């Protein structure tokens, strides 16, 4: 397995404009091919951390992506290689048709017309939404919109996908469908979530974020079975989890 460092965060701290501390002393390294879950109670700073990964929030070089610090100059490149999917699909589906939304990324990257069309149909196929090109996003169900939102990032062929609460508000079937979709993508994955049951099926490694600090960073098996640790940070061990660690981690498929 390639041990290239894809993301490296060194002692990152961040305070909101009103002075409130959001992140303190974050140290995190993610390697290519890893599947990492960032869990923690509400208000822990998960979304704020994710926004640093593609330069929406600046970090003065403390965040390095593919061994280069995130600066003004390489933003476009960073955003192509690291795709960020937000929690609310309506915030990302802002065009009049599905095609326009999924094509937005490739067009900004300067693809030719033929390349854009190919990228769009490829991305829609990967999320199982082929044929939806001319539909308007407000006519789609939540599950469909979440999948299109993922397609809008996939069309740029990212190497890393960062997802903020991808399964929130979905019914159980929708959640499993989405996890299945994510498992099939050959990318490095970072997922901020509350959904511990799905984390077990998707991620090797789990990081707990609480009060803006990383309080635990270990394999999923270790963390998800540590009930006292979970409860200490406002989480609970998922009911559907089997108790042995062998069933928690999927082997790389």
């Amino acid at each position, binding site marked *: 397995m390639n041990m290239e460092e894809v993301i490296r965060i060194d002692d990152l701290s961040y305070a909101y404009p009103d002075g409130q501390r959001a992140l303190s002393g974050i140290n995190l390294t993610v390697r290519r091919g890893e599947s990492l879950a960032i869990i923690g109670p509400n208000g822990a700073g998960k979304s704020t951390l994710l926004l640093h990964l593609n330069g929406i929030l600046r970090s003065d070089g403390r965040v390095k992506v593919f061994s280069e610090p995130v600066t003004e100059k390489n933003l476009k490149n960073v955003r192509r290689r690291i795709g960020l999917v937000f929690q609310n699909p309506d*915030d990302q589906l802002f065009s*009049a048709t599905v095609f326009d939304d999924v094509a937005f990324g490739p*067009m900004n*990257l300067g693809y030719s017309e033929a390349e854009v069309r190919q990228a769009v149909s490829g991305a829609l196929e990967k999320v199982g939404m082929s044929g939806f090109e001319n539909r308007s996003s407000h006519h789609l169900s939540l599950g469909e919109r979440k999948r299109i939102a993922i397609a809008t990032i996939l069309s740029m062929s990212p190497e890393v996908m960062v997802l903020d609460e991808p399964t929130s508000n979905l019914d159980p079937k929708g959640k499993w469908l989405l996890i299945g979709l994510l498992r099939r993508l050959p990318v490095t994955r970072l997922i901020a979530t509350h959904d511990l049951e799905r984390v077990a099926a998707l991620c090797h490694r789990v990081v707990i974020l609480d009060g803006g600090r990383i309080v635990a960073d270990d394999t999923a098996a270790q963390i998800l079975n540590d009930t006292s640790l979970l409860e200490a940070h406002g989480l609970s061990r998922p009911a559907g989890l089997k108790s042995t660690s062998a069933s928690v981690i999927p082997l790389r498929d």
Partner: protein
Amino acid sequence: MTLLSKTMKHSFLDRYSDRDSFVHRLDPRTKLVAVFLFILAVGLTSPAMWPVFAIYFVIIASLIIFSRVPVLYVFKRSLVIIPFVLLIAIFIPFFKHGEAVGSYNLWIWKVSVSYHGLQVLVTILIKSWLSILSLILLTSTTKITDLLRGLEQLRLPGVMVMVLSFMYRYIFILVDEVMRMKQARDSRNFGGGRLRQLKTIGNMAGTLFIRSYERGERVYDAMLSRGFDGQSRTLHHLSFGLSDLFFGISFGVVVVFTCTFNFLH
């Protein structure tokens, strides 16, 4: 989902735009230019030129019939403009100088209605009505997405097209939010006086504004995440057909002829 959002899902801005007629099949740019020309010609018509207005009415009515859009629907929608026009123009007959049709004594003032003023009022009503008929025809025969592409290719600044596109996209979401707020308010409403109700509506409007503003920030972050750098780019290129040429020429000829006729009188 609320009941209204279910009805809103059937797009209300460009209803009937998915039907088929020769008007529907015209390039959106042709229709945009034609509507602009029509409104310009109507606007330039001198007051009380009734035959000229009649010709314009025949033009637009026949196009409406050809487009197979329900006439009653177009008619009902066009009535929307009347209150606004009346609000502004109702005072004209009282202030225009000229031969008086009648006068009234309102306390100590003598108020008179002039014949010329009445003519101007009716002219304004007719011009507004004709203009809005043409706009309704435009939106009923062209999908909003095609309309936006047409505007873009007619060199409307990219930023403006983007703003219109967002407006179309998010108006449904805003309506949904208003409906949800209304339901929540009604669930906690014990009646109360006018003032209290107005205060609640004021709060709702303020909250809606803040939520929309913050959504705008999130949408911007999403755009940045997909490589947005301030430049709007386009892909689909519209192309003219033979019917555009045919329609364009005949429409242009009729309108210019009528306009000249107006000026020669």
